[in-house]
């Protein structure tokens, strides 16, 4: 069973503060992803990575940075948090096989920016 662990599970931050969301996977998957989920918008891709040292911009990268220091770990960084970044954030991992790309998601981090 694929295992993706996110921390913290819940976070309250102040506007202008720095927030780091962490993700760890034990599946040895090459790719890792950060999505945010908002009511009415489904899941939107923020950043992703093809392996250690690599980060790529997703569809909504503004206001976010990402870091992939190792195969197992992928962080999402909000340098200057804003209330519009209040959301539920999901990390996922996967290794594309041919045309298939099954993602395994963590349980999510609920972030509130006040």
């Amino acid at each position: 069973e694929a295992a993706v662990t996110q921390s913290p599970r819940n976070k309250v931050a102040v506007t202008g503060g720095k927030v780091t969301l962490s993700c760890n996977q034990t599946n040895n998957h090459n790719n890792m992803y950060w999505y945010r989920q908002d009511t009415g918008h489904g899941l939107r891709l923020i950043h992703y990575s093809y392996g250690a040292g690599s980060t790529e911009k997703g569809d909504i990268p503004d206001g976010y940075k990402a870091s992939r220091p190792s195969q197992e770990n992928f962080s999402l960084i909000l340098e200057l948090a804003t209330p519009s970044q209040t959301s539920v954030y999901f990390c996922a991992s996967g290794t594309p096989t041919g045309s298939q790309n099954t993602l395994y998601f963590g349980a999510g981090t609920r972030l509130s920016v006040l």
Partner: protein
Amino acid sequence: QQQVRQSPQSLTVWEGETAILNCSYEDSTFNYFPWYQQFPGEGPALLISISSVSDKKEDGRFTIFFNKREKKLSLHITDSQPGDSATYFCAASNTNTGKLTFGDGTVLTVKP
């Protein structure tokens, strides 16, 4: 422009009925279409998927019907159970990027 669209936004069926969830897409290079199921407080989990070379994929009570020409697909859940109550996401990707693009989801409620 939204790449993947789902309808309806919400659907209520009675236990034992067939639920039909619809999905359409814009990008003709998409060739892989997974459906994810999400329960409250959890992350999405893969339910069933289909590649563009097939027009039907069946797994127990769950069936995907795919129409490449019309860029449409649907998920049929037969003999719906209250435990199927969840949010269902249609997603799409192509071999080149491996990125999954998700629709906004359909909230399914199955009443006993």
